[in-house]
């Protein structure tokens, strides 16, 4: 069964450092997303990506965040200068015609 793959599963970084979270969406899907979930809180939408450009972004997705689909298969989320409050689970999702499928997440810990 096709699945969304995320790497790494856990990333620890120092405050102020850049991190790149990677995702391989399901191959025939056209819509790609990043969501985050702070421990004990709801899953929150960050950004959606379609046709090689951002289609929607939330208030959370400020200038410190960027997304890229560099090679037609990977989909990345970059945080330029991490803050303590960026610590969360980050989920990538991809969607074909109907429902979105989520990856297992990257746990980002900023220290």
């Amino acid at each position: 069964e096709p699945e969304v793959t995320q790497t790494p599963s856990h990333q620890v970084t120092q405050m102020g450092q850049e991190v790149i979270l990677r995702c391989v969406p399901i191959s025939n899907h056209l819509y790609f997303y990043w969501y985050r979930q702070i421990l004990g809180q709801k899953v929150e939408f960050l950004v959606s990506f379609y046709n090689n450009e951002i289609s929607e972004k939330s208030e959370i997705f400020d200038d410190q965040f960027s997304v890229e689909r560099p090679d037609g298969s990977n989909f990345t989320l970059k945080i330029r200068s991490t803050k303590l409050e960026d610590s969360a689970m980050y989920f990538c999702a991809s969607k074909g015609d109907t429902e979105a499928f989520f990856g297992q997440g990257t746990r980002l810990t900023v220290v």
Partner: protein
Amino acid sequence: EDQVTQSPEALRLQEGESSSLNCSYTVSGLRGLFWYRQDPGKGPEFLFTLYSAGEEKEKERLKATLTKKESFLHITAPKPEDSATYLCAVQVPQGGANNLFFGTGTRLTVIP
């Protein structure tokens, strides 16, 4: 302003004790309502999509229903492996055509 509210926050059931989880929404122009299951430390796992009032979907011990204001996830004769957090999410026009807005979930524990 919360668009999706789930209740109860937590639910403990004995194995075999059927119950229902509620998801109420305050959006207009609902494009779709989604149920996901989330295990600790894992990503949401898709269960059902509902698009219009009166629609029902069923899978094993789970059945999802939709009205104009809320959705229910009915769990019949649950087993311990049904223990998880169940998330409800909506697609709304003003939030972008395909983005999901999640509730806080119901944490279900099924006791053997």
